[in-house]
C-alpha cells in the first residue's frame, strides 16, 4: 500500500537537491515532430514514482529518456535537463554505459538471454567487475532472493532460462537488473504480459524494493497505481505531444483528480 501523502502538491524535501532524479523541461522529438513536451518532475529517494496515461501518450518514451536508451533509437532527439543526484546525464562527457548501470530497466516483455539462469543474472554484473567463486555465487543468490525467485530456482541455476514461465522470467529479468546494483529501477508496464498471480508477486516485490532503491513505474493499470505508487504523474496528449497534465501524491490524484483528461482516463481505465 502506498504511503499517506502530504497535502502539498509538490514534494517537499529538506534540501531541494536531495531528489534522486530531477527532470526539467524534457522534450523528445522524432524526426522533428515532438513526442513529449514540457516534462518536469522530481523523483524522491525510496519512492515509487508512477507514470500513468493513455496508450501512445509517450510514457515509454519518457522512461527511455531517463537512462538514455533514446540514444539507441535513430531519429530521436532529446532536449532539456535530466539530473541523477544533481549531475546532468545528457552531457557528452557522461559514460552512458555506466549510467545504465546505475539506472536499470525492466521491460514489458521479459527478455531472457538464451543461457542458464545463473548466466542471465550475472550478464550485466560481469562487465562491471570481475566475479570469481564465492563472490559470484553470493551475488547470484542475493539478486535472486531480492527478486523473490531464489526458492524456485536454487537447485537448477545451470538450467536454461528459457524453460521458466513468463512470470518467472520477468522476475529473472528483475534479478538481472538488480545484480548490477542500480539506485533507480525504471519499469515499463512490467506486469502487462503476466497473469494475475505473477502480477501480484511483482507488485509485492516493488513495495519491498523501494526500501533500498527508487522506482519509476509506468503502468496503465490504475488499480496497480493505487496499490503500489507513492506519487503519480499523468501523461496525456496535448496538441499531438505528451505532456504531464497532473503530478501529485497518488492518493490526491486518484481520489481527487484536478485535470479533465485525468478524470476521463480514471473513469475509463482498468
Amino acid at each position: 500500500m502506498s504511503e499517506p501523502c502530504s497535502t502539498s502538491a509538490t514534494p517537499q524535501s529538506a534540501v531541494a537537491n536531495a531528489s534522486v532524479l530531477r527532470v526539467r523541461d524534457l522534450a523528445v522529438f522524432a524526426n522533428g515532430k515532438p513526442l513529449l513536451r514540457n516534462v518536469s518532475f522530481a523523483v524522491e529517494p525510496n519512492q515509487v514514482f508512477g507514470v500513468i496515461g493513455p496508450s501512445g501518450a509517450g510514457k515509454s518514451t519518457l522512461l527511455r529518456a531517463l537512462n538514455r536508451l533514446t540514444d539507441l533509437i535513430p531519429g530521436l532527439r532529446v532536449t532539456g535537463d535530466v539530473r541523477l543526484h544533481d549531475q546532468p546525464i545528457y552531457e557528452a562527457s557522461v559514460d552512458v554505459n555506466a549510467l545504465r548501470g546505475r539506472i536499470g530497466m525492466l521491460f514489458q516483455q521479459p527478455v531472457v538471454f538464451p543461457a542458464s539462469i545463473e548466466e542471465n543474472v550475472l550478464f550485466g554484473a560481469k562487465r562491471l567487475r570481475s566475479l570469481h567463486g564465492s563472490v559470484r555465487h553470493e551475488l547470484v543468490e542475493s539478486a535472486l532472493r531480492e527478486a523473490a525467485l531464489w526458492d524456485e530456482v536454487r537447485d537448477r541455476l545451470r538450467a536454461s532460462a528459457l524453460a521458466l514461465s513468463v512470470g518467472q522470467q520477468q522476475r529473472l529479468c528483475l534479478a538481472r537488473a538488480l545484480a548490477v546494483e542500480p539506485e533507480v529501477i525504471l519499469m515499463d508496464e512490467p506486469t502487462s504480459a503476466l497473469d494475475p498471480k505473477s502480477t501480484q508477486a511483482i507488485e509485492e516485490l516493488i513495495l519491498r524494493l523501494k526500501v533500498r532503491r527508487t522506482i519509476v513505474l509506468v503502468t496503465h493499470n490504475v488499480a496497480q497505481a493505487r496499490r503500489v505508487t507513492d506519487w503519480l504523474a499523468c501523461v496525456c496528449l496535448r496538441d499531438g505531444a505528451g505532456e504531464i497534465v497532473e503530478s501529485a501524491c497518488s492518493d490526491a490524484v486518484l481520489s481527487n483528480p484536478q485535470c479533465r483528461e485525468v478524470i476521463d482516463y480514471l473513469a475509463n481505465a482498468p
Partner: protein
Amino acid sequence: MTRAWSWFFSFVALATLAFLVAIFVWQSLPVWHHEGWNYLTGTKWFFRQREFGALPMIYGSVVVSVVALVLAAPLGMGAAVFTAEYLSRKPRLAVKVLIELLAGVPSVVYGLLGILLLRNWIYELFARFDLLSGDTLLTAAVLLSVMILPTVVTLSDDALRAVPATQRRAARALGLTRSETILHVSLPQARRGLSAALLLALGRALGETIAVFLVVGRQDNNLPERLLSLRPLLESGQTLTSKLGSSETNIGYGDPLHWGAIVGLGLILLVLTGALTVLGTGFGKRSDA
C-alpha cells in the same frame, strides 16, 4: 488445365535433375570398376597409362577452398558486423545492394584479373621461394577468397540481423557497451546462421571452375608428402574443377574408361557441393511454410 501444366513443367524440371545425377553415376561406372576405391585414394593420374587417381585433385580442391575461406571469413564477418550492427537502415540497404551487385562479377573477369595482376604479385611476393611461376594453389585460393567475399558478407549480415532487437536492447539497458553486446549477444545468437554462411561460401568456392582453371597451374600428380604443410601452396596444382574444365574433357569422350574417370570427378564434385549446400541451408533456414 493450369494444374496439369504446372505439374507437367515441374515434372520436366525435376526429372531432368534426377536424370542428371543418374547420368553422373552411370557414366562414371567404368572407372569405379577399373580402379575401385583407388580412384579416390590414388595419387597418380596418367590417362594414357589408364591410371586414374583423383586424390591430388581432391586435395587441390579442398586446400584451395579452405584457404579461401580462411582468408575471406574474418574479413567478411568483420564487414558484416559493421553493416549489421553499426549502420542505420538506409546506408545498410545501399551497402547490401552494392555487395549483391559485386557478387555478380563473372568468374572469367576474376580469372582475367588473376592472370594479369594477381599472378605477378604472388610471383614477386614469394620470389625468395624460387617459384616456377605465379600460378599456384595459393593464387587460386586468394582469387577465390575475393570471389566468395560478397557471399560471406551478405549471409553473415542476414544472420546477425535475425537476432531480435529486443535482445540487444536488454543488454544495452544493463549497461553493456555496443561491442560487448555484439560479442556476447549478437554473435553467439547468430551462430547457426554464421555457420551456414561459411558452409555455403565453402560450397561456392569448391565449385568455381573458370577462375581457378586460369591461375592454379593445372599441374597433375603434385600431391605433397606432408599434406598439412604450407609450402605446397606455393606450387602449381590441380583441382577437380580445373581438370573438368580442361581439354581432357573433350579428348576423353570417345574412351569409356577415360570418360568415366572425368565424369567421376564431376560426381565427386557434385556430392561434395551438394552435401555442403544441404548442410548450409539446413542450418540457416527454419521451416517456412
